[in-house]
């Protein structure tokens, strides 16, 4: 059998698995990887997550919705083309959408600043999120950024404050929030629209505290070790599912999301609507309670009773009461 035939057979298998709800998506993709002749490594996923032909936020919205209207501006400083938002009707439900917007080519990317938002982007997101709460619209966020823009103007206008405020406000917003990482989930810039009731990741998306390049240059002292860093950082969708940080993984078409926009948008749509149906059943109080519990549970540590601790501290400072 030729490679091409194999590929289409795999595609069929995957469709079937999805339709019948059989959990073999990962196996199929592993086969697809072998077919492509590459190992399924974290770095390959980083490259796929950054693939120029992957659908962008606005393309997802366009493909998923019956109708949508983009809304611009933070009403304070200006409009940030790197972080888009608006209203979209998906499966008859009116959502407020927010998303990092990358481009497909140099020209688009210059306009969109490669999806790296300034403070006004995050402030626009907060304005639209508050509006969503007021008009009882659920919120859909599409995460795809290498990070918030680390520039002079961004700092002057308080990028840290803008992200921080979003984290705090989104955590107590009285409307369902569904987040989908579709490409790069880079650092605080991603999290700035990433606090929600459900968080999903596309199979080949990544989500991390810093880029593998940044990680390599700081912790491995060599920016060229980005590939190694990608593995060490545990930033892939299966990693994060394993950690319990995300709710589920949305399988991509064979080869990656870029190979079939229609199909991946359909799957995201299906996941988002299913999540919404579930969340819509909760009363706002319950929704907030569950979100709060989710946020408070983040982190891994031990709790040793201080008395039994062979603590360096007590030796040094004679502590212990």
């Amino acid at each position, binding site marked *: 059998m030729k490679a091409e035939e194999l590929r289409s057979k795999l595609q069929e298998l995957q469709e079937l698995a999805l339709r019948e709800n059989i959990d073999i998506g990962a196996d199929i993709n592993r086969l697809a990887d072998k077919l492509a002749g590459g190992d399924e490594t974290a770095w390959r996923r980083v490259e796929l997550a950054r693939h120029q032909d992957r659908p962008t936020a606005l393309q997802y919205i366009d493909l998923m919705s019956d109708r949508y209207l983009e809304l611009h501006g933070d009403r304070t400083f200006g409009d940030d083309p790197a972080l888009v938002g608006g209203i979209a009707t998906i499966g008859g439900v009116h959502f407020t959408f927010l998303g990092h917007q990358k481009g497909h080519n140099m020209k688009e990317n210059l306009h969109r600043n490669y999806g790296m938002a300034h403070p006004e982007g995050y402030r626009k997101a907060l304005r639209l999120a508050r509006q969503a709460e007021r008009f009882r619209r659920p919120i859909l966020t599409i995460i795809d950024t290498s990070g*918030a823009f*680390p*520039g*002079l103007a*961004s*700092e002057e*206008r*308080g*990028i*840290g*404050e803008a*992200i*921080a*405020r979003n*984290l*705090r*406000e989104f*955590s*107590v917003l009285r409307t369902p929030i569904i987040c989908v990482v579709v490409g790069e989930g880079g*650092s*605080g810039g991603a*999290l*700035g629209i*990433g*606090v929600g009731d459900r968080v999903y990741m596309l199979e080949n998306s990544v*989500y*991390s*505290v*810093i880029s593998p390049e940044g*990680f390599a240059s*700081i*912790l491995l002292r060599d920016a060229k070790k980005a590939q190694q860093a990608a593995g*060490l*950082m*545990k*930033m892939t969708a299966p*990693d*994060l599912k394993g*950690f319990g*940080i995300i709710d589920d993984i949305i399988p991509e078409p064979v080869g990656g999301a870029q190979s079939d926009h229609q199909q991946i948008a359909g799957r995201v749509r299906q996941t988002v609507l299913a999540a919404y149906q579930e969340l819509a059943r909760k009363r706002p*109080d319950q929704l907030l*309670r569950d979100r*709060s519990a989710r*946020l*408070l549970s*983040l*982190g*891994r*540590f*031990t*709790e040793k*009773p*201080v008395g039994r*601790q062979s603590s*360096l*501290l007590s030796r040094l*400072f*004679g*502590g212990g*009461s």
Partner: protein
Amino acid sequence: MSPGRYFRKVLRAVSRDKMKQGRRALRMDDRRYVATKHSCPSCGKPVDDGDLAVNLFVCPHCGHHYRISALERIKTLMDGGEISEFSADVQPVNPIDFPEYTEKLRQAQEKTGIDEAITTGVGRIEGRQAAFALMSFKFLGGSMGSVVGERLARAMLYAADQAMPCIIFTASGGARMQEGIFSLMQMAKTSHTAALLAEAGQPLIVVLTDPTTGGVTASFAMLGDITLAEPNALIGFAGPRVIEGTIRQKLPAGFQRAEFQKDKGFVDAVVPRSELRSTLAYLIDVHSRGGAKP
């Protein structure tokens, strides 16, 4: 149940059960400072170590504010030079099995004499009580991992439950990268507890000290009802070198310093260390229900 009542339930669960463990008095050993001389990192003039400690770790010649750890902060700021520490039982693990992280933590603990990048507890300033969270830059760059996030969350929830202000001294290079995605998520967790504290009607007072950058700036550090800063403290999201790499030019002098952030509208006041005690005491008074306490 209203969210307000839910939050109060969460607070009680956290403060009553968990805070009992890991509680102890924490103070610094005075003998650590013997009279040896060094040069001030800012003006280069000779400074006596013993004098420095008496002078709140501020250079007597040029007023340079030294970076100080939680223990030195407790010694110079709190009544009796001590706090009743809580969450001392919350200790780090290696959540993403990062090579040598456990070893790094052990070394940092040995080198610095503190157990994590943050120390939390209840203390008094001029007789006024508040919950405190004090970061130590010298512990792995003050980086925020799961322990920093949890201790901060508990400090804020404790303050909310016990109806007292929460005062945070920041000093951090950002997220603890060795804890991977867990470190990023501490930003969401600490920002959420800031929302719960606000819900309970208690003030969050943040004192930004040198340096405060990265994920700490983009979360609780920028969420204070009142935001103070120590003179000349570096405060920003991206570090200066990263920005210079982006714009490919040198940054103007004073960029991202405390005074700059005040000019740009992100800091309420720049307060020298010598005035911190009276300023914080005043702020606690202003926010306590019965008005000023004796």
